[in-house]
């Protein structure tokens, strides 16, 4: 299964970067959304996945079953999701404001500050 997920990671990264290479800022921000999902999936997949054994301790026995899923990548991904959400919220508003200021959604037109 990890192989399929690894392929999926590739697809997400490719899609994200392709979108980020578009000149339309809306596409750019969509690319960012996909990108964060892609990175999260890397963390999730690279540590190996387990079906049906969430890292919860049994209420009664206070023990866990053997071979439960690794909780640490989950915690990392959770933090990453939250951070990505904050970043994304910022970016979305940024592209809208950029659009309002520049009057255009072409990133190539937003080159007044470079040279």
């Amino acid at each position, binding site marked *: 299964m*990890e*192989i*399929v997920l*690894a*392929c*999926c*990671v*590739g*697809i*997400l*990264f*490719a899609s994200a*970067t*392709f979108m*980020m*290479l*578009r*000149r*339309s*800022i*809306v596409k*750019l921000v*969509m690319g960012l*959304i996909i990108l964060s999902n892609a990175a999260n*999936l*890397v963390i*999730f*997949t*690279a540590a*190996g*996945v387990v*079906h049906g*054994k*969430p890292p*919860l*301790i049994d*209420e009664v026995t*206070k023990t866990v079953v053997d071979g*439960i*899923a*690794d*909780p*640490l990548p989950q*915690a990392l991904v*959770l*933090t990453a*999701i*939250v951070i990505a*959400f904050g*970043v994304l919220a*910022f970016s979305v*508003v*940024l*592209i809208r404001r950029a659009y309002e200021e520049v009057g255009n959604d072409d*990133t190539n037109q*937003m*080159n*007044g500050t*470079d*040279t």
Partner: protein
Amino acid sequence: MFVFILIIVLLAACSPILVPWLASRQKVGLLALVPACLFVYALTTYLPAVADGQTFLKTTQWMPSLGLTLSFYIDGLSLLFVLLITGIGTFIVWYASDYMRNYPDLGRFFLWLFAFMAAMLGLVTADNLLLLFVFWELTSITSYMLIGFNHESEKARKLALQGLFVTVGGGLLLMTGVILLGSIAGTLQISEIVQQPLAAQGSLVNVMLILILMGAFTKSAQFPFHFWLPNAMAAPTPVSAFLHSATMVKAGIFLMARLHPALGEQILWSTLQLWAGGITMILGAVLAYTAIDIKKALAYSTVTALGTLTFLLGIGSQAAIVAFVGFLIAHSLYKASLFMLAGAIDHSAGSKDLSKLGGLKKTMPMTFALMIVAALSLAGLPPLFGFIAKELVFEAALAANSGLVLVAVTMASLSVAVAIILIIKPFLGSDALLPQKPHEASFPMLVGPAVLLSASLLFGLWPRLVDQGLIQATVQAVIPNAADFYLSIWHGFNAALGLSVLALILGIVLVRAWQPSRWLAEKQRLFSESVGPEAGYFKLMDFIVWLAIKQTRVIQNGRLSNYMTVIILAVVIPVGYTLLTQHGWPDLPKVAPPNIYEVMMVALLALSTLFAVITPARFASIISLGAMGYAVALIFVHFSAPDLGITQVLVETLTVLLLVLVLVKAPGFSSYASRGEVIRDAIVAILLGVLMTLLVLAALNVQWAPSISDYFIENSYELGKGRNIVNVILVDFRALDTLGEIFVLAIAALGVYSMIRLRKGSS
């Protein structure tokens, strides 16, 4: 010595306040008392001791780790320079107090002048190579400030930059050379380095020699770096007289002389000095002869002198070194005087153009008289000290070989010509049409030349005044075991005298041939602008700017998509290359094959992502991203991550809401890319995708160490008092992450809030 420098630094620091105060009382000349006192002090305290063969060394730590010490060393060579700096400096300050009377920012002028003086004193007395370099660079920057004193003129700024660029550039090479010398010799203390000749050989030593010589040559205007010096004449005349004749330009010479005991026996060292010095001598002399601006002529004549000094060091025999010292003293005396007199002419007549000046004899008799003495010294005629110096040069050349004699004679005859022209053109002949009515120069402007030339005359008549004390000690500093020698104005009829006569005759012939030729000057200018080293400098500068603009236009082209392409490739190429060359294609990890449902789940993820990418409809894309989020949540849940599933679902929902809220007023999808660009971008994107897939597969194949997670699983309930291990990690084991995370959210909120609400014109 440190006290000397401190006094001058203090004086420099006070100048901006002190000078206006003195100026309001017409007593700026009083400032000259300070260098004068120092001169007298050095003369009375150090000279007798040094003449006795004593040296003074005082060392204080500065940055011991770098071997940088505040160590000052006084021997003949440094004392000679100290005397020159303070002595000539006294008169320069006096001179400037009158010459610069009407300039604005006089305080700042003296600030930089004294700062320079302090740096120069430091340079010549430093016993630590690094310390010497520190002062070296300080002279460069203070000289920049002085050259560009008329900073509102663009030309002055440009030429000041040129001087700075060449000297600092050379300085950087010198620094590298110093580093090398330090590591080869094992110390930076000059007094230790010069204990014996450097024994080491080899390419590293050669590199070191070249680097040090480069530093010295740039500073002392040796060919091919000679061009900056005449251009530095943009500076006010006192500056030219002080920095660009008597002191700073001799720093390179000083350095070479300083290191002579250690490096003088290196073949490369002396060969380079001979060639550079020889070429510089002749070139400078020719250029001086053809110049029509007095200051230019003097500057090129200085170049000649500097070349001569280098040349003598290159010969390296005792005779040459004696000649070196003699010529150094003589030149400093007459050249500073010449500059001051030229300044007086300019100040009085308002012109420096030899072809325009004339007949000043009547209005400026004192100046004229002094000019004659100075020029005779330049021409190397008795009974001035210049004559002795020139004789010494001839003798040194004669002792070496005949080619060198030719060079020396050429230089001497051209100098004679220049000297005579300097007497004839401005002062004799008919009255010229001048920009302003000339008048005799004031006392402060003449006192300097008068005293200096008297010294020249005195030393010429009674060389005993200097040869046993100062010159002997200086020669000793350059050649530690020099034999005793005596200078005298009359050597009898010998080859040197013959050469002098020859030079005089040739010089007079050349004067006859001299035409104030604008055509020649123009040709000369064109030459130097198109092929000469100066042209090289300007071409280099132009090239740098051209390259800079070109590069910036190509690299920093303002196109985000190009930036991203480069950056993505910067990930793909090195990482991919390393992966494939050092690790190889990863094997497929041995894991359970997926079932149909898992495949469907991932298919939904892939399809919804791809649809979000290809759809031309913006909101279809957003909705598709929502579906993608749900698919990710499904994967999380299927693989035992309920917390992630919940979070993903919630975040996805809120993301879509946010997008909907924000994009109400945002543009739709526009497609700007051509088919080719789309394909190019797709290739770049796919490369990254493939790379990431390979990396994940590679990572799945290895497990170098067991995970630390077992600790969390074991202790979550006991120590963390929670059954949801993920949550215990988040709020306890790794709570700091979560703390950072909530601040990220808060910052995002603030950012969004300010972006929406704080706009131009809103309040």
